């Protein structure tokens, strides 16, 4: 039921931010995506604390180089493409433009340069636990391995195996190694997936490739095109992964640019994605990394945003943004690498600027990490306290409410869980909790309910029998009947007759059974019923937040199409020999909606007692009501205008297209009148200003 419209939401948010703030002071904000899929500002997650830009970083070897007067002491980065932090918190940068690997310490002082002169165009690197440096040299088309002293020990070129594919070029872009020493390489243009090599450099196979997915156009082409025509089409290929990371457990993460739903994948040994979550995934992720707790950090090269996911793939924070030319800390031009060190310090490498920005997590972010990791490890009770602290800092943090709710749920405190999940508006978990609550309630009340039902049925039977024998209650019945005979009431009660006898019902309708007044009352009732539906439906099914509903808007959404239908239908029928008067069309259309008027309230009430498991009951009853209304509408056109079946279809189709035309005209008209009004107003203002 979750609808993710993150693109729109983010865009909106950003445009709001841009619109609200003066251009020179774009605020530095963090936000998150809530359970409904819209962006929401939150406390800052990371604070920029510094930048390593390559100039003036000397360190020991740099100082020595400077003292020797050599030209190499300057470590300005040129188009750096990858960043890695090893277990000793040392920083490795693939300085692509300069053809070398730069090793820096935690604060960015130069420790040494690796592979100067040996590397052509290194774009990716990885350092294993023993200090061996694996470099993907894109320019040379090979993988180069250095030992911990920076000596080149091995180069691996294009795999000789036939399975690799003789025509495939080997252009390694990114590289990692797993615990066994197997290498996983992202190579340009290899749609089959990651190249998996043994420590010796033998080709083991392709790993974790993406899928092309189903394409309707292509399927249709396959049916109708000849083989020759098909061979001339360009093939549709799955996107190849863009970047990869490996965590402590040896699970491999890939990021793929251009995938809509599974942009980040967590792959097991078999190459299958472990993420089940439908959390928001960005589509332009240039690099990902995993910290010690399993949190995933990803950089968006286009928007300049950093995404933080927890280890189950739920989005925690988004921060950063594109630098609009003011060279401020915290914004990027084109982030190409992210890395986290053991202390939680986040480094972001900017390809165009050639610098590395340092970010420190705020206490808020640390709390969130603590809570999520406790929760995801199954320590629900212990995660409660950190979640509460998170809420103290940001009361609207949805994930905290979900976390607390689930913690309560796992402890069996369904009542409290229900309240928390209600705030977070997490449909699935809310429904599960409600199910448990309902079960508890049933457990304590089911015998009473059975007894009460049996008693009611018995009572009803007895009353019926007594009534038949002694005429008990006859005056009351007579009064009811007399009320039913009042014309207006009779007209209103006609809705019930429409349900069982639509054709007769319309005949009687035309012949004075219902008045315009009764139809209008019913129309008002219809609006009321619709509003009740909007406000009253269990949010599991509606997905609407009643607080945000505009009452008048909802009413107009119902009334405008309705009157458009009535007017169009009347006008169309006048041309097409319809017999119905405008009054009859109006009355008939209202009465055609009688199933909706009668059944919506019970269905809405029922929805409050249902969970997602029984959603089929709710969905079917609603669809049935709507189909019934459509059927009655159809019979209305046929009977009121005295059409044949074929004419009825024609009339209905023309009416609907008429409505569309009307909507178009209205749209143009309002658009134009807006312009005219603008013009008049600006002329008036001009006059005021001049005179």
């Amino acid at each position, binding site marked *: 039921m979750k609808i993710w419209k993150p693109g729109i939401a983010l865009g909106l948010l950003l445009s709001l931010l841009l619109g609200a703030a003066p251009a020179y002071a774009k605020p530095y904000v963090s936000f998150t995506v809530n359970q409904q899929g819209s962006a929401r500002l939150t406390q800052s997650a990371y604070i920029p604390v510094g930048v390593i830009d390559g100039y003036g970083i000397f360190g020991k070897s740099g100082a020595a180089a400077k003292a020797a007067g050599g030209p190499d002491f300057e470590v300005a980065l040129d188009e750096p493409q990858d960043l890695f932090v090893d277990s000793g918190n040392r920083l490795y940068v693939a300085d692509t433009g300069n053809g070398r690997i730069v090793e820096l310490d935690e604060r960015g002082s130069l420790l040494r340069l690796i592979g100067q002169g040996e590397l052509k165009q290194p774009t990716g690197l990885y350092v294993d636990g023993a200090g061996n440096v694996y470099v993907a040299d894109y320019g040379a088309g090979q993988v180069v391995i250095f030992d911990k002293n920076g000596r080149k020990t091995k180069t691996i070129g294009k795999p000789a195996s036939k399975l690799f594919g003789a025509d495939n070029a080997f252009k390694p872009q990114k590289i990692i190694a797993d615990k066994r020493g197997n290498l996983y390489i992202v190579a340009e243009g290899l749609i089959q997936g990651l190249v998996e090599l043994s420590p010796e450099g033998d080709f083991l196979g392709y790993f974790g490739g993406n899928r092309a997915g189903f394409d309707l156009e292509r399927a249709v082409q396959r049916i109708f095109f000849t083989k020759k025509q098909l061979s001339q089409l360009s093939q549709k290929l799955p996107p190849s992964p863009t970047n990869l990371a490996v965590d402590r457990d040896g699970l491999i993460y890939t990021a793929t640019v251009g995938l809509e739903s599974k942009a980040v994948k967590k792959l097991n040994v078999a190459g299958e994605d472990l993420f089940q979550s439908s959390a928001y995934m960005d589509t332009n992720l240039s690099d990902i990394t995993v910290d010690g707790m399993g949190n995933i950090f990803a950089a968006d090269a286009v928007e300049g945003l950093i995404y933080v996911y927890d280890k189950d793939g739920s989005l925690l924070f988004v921060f950063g943004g594109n630098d609009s030319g003011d060279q401020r800390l915290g914004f990027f031009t084109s982030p190409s690498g992210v890395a986290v060190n053991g202390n939680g310090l986040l480094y972001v490498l900017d390809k165009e600027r050639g610098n590395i920005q340092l970010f420190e997590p705020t206490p808020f972010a640390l709390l969130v990490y603590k809570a999520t990791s406790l929760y995801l490890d199954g320590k629900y009770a212990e995660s409660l306290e950190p979640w509460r602290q998170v809420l103290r800092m940001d009361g609207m943090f949805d994930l905290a409410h979900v976390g607390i709710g689930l913690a309560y749920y796992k402890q069996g405190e369904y009542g409290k869980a229900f309240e928390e999940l209600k705030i977070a508006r997490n449909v699935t978990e809310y429904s599960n909790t409600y199910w448990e609550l309902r079960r508890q309630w049933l457990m304590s009340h*089911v*015998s009473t309910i059975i007894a009460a039902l049996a008693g009611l049925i018995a009572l009803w039977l007895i009353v019926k029998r007594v009534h038949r024998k002694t005429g008990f209650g006859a005056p009351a019945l007579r009064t009811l009947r007399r009320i039913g005979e009042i014309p207006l009431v009779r007209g209103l009660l006609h809705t019930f007759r429409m349900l069982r006898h639509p054709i007769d019902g319309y005949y009687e309708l035309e012949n004075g059974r219902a008045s315009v007044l009764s139809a209008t009352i019913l129309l008002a009732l219809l609006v009321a019923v619709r509003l009740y539906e909007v406000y009253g439906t269990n949010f599991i099914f509606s997905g609407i937040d009643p607080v945000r509903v505009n009452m008048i808007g909802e009413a107009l959404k119902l009334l405008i199409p309705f009157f458009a239908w009535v007017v169009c239908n009347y006008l169309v029928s006048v041309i097409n020999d319809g017999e119905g008067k405008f009054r009859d069309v109006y009355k008939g259309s209202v009465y055609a909606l009688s199933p909706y008027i009668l059944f919506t309230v019970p269905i809405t009430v029922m929805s409050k007692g249902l969970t997602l*498991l029984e959603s*089929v009951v709710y969905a079917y009853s609603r669809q049935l009501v709507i189909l019934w209304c459509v059927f009655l509408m159809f019979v209305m056109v046929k009977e009121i205008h005295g059409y044949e079946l074929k004419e009825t279809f024609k009339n209905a189709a023309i009416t609907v297209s008429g409505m569309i035309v009307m909507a178009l005209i209205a749209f143009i008209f309002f658009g134009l009148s807006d312009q005219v009004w603008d013009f008049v107003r600006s002329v008036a203002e001009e006059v005021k200003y001049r005179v």
Partner: protein
Amino acid sequence: MKQAAELLQGDKLHGPRSEPLKLRWYRKRTFRNELSAYLFLSPYLLLFTLFIVIPVLAAVGLSFTYFNTVQAPKFIGLQNYVNLLTQDSEFMMYVLPNTIKFALVVGPGGYLLSFLLAWLLAQIPRRSRTLLTLAIYSPSLTASVAMAVVWLIVFSGDSTGYLNAFLIKWGFINEPIQWTQSPHYLMPIMITVTLWNSMGVGFLAMLAGILNINPEMYEAGYIDGIRSRLQEVWYITIPSMKPQMLFGAVMAVVGTFQAGDIGVQLSGANPTPQYAGQLISNHIADYGFIRYDMGYASAVSVVLLLIIYGFSKLAWRLFGEKDGER
């Protein structure tokens, strides 16, 4: 006529001395008449009691007990029913929703389908009608054979299954789908197969009902101002074949709620994978014949009986003859 006259006479004759008649009630001629009728019925009544009434009563009785088929049943009151509603989470979470979903689609769907097909068949000449009727009726004749031969091959889980092969060939999917083992697809497949299978007795009864309508009725209807086929169906066909419609509806209700076997046949397991295709009758079989909890199974079957009764009652209200309203 003769009997009525006799009765009248009898009343006249015996009227004045009614007091001693009460003592010798069994000599009353009417009762003797009825007795012969009952005698005539007795083989049926005997068998009906033996094979229907007693088992149903026994099930109702057992539903109040704990009975594991080895020890004697132990009376536990309403406990089984309370457990059903509160403890049996499979029943409430999967079985009941599944059954409702299945019944909502297959019941009215199959019913409308059989009426529509019967009506269409009634429009064509006799010889081709007979052939087509046989063809359309054949799915319910050949249910189990066709299941093994047709559907299991169509929905086979490897790439040689017809559906998988077709979808792979046209590029809709990349790898074969385990149709009947997958919780996502089992229910839709069950519904499809049951709908295909639904041209049962109800369909034949409806066809007979439609063919039974006097053509003069339609002519009279046209003289009285019926203008279209829709009105013809609405005003003449359906009212004239209400008994058959009722029969069809009741058969559809009963058939739908009994059709639990299909899921087990398709998936080859009871319970079905992740309870995806578990219907009430599977649940009964599960508890009765796999877990040997006969008391509980009886309680579930009583609930099923009540549900079927309720829906049949609804069918009666919709299609049964009423005096007042029409």
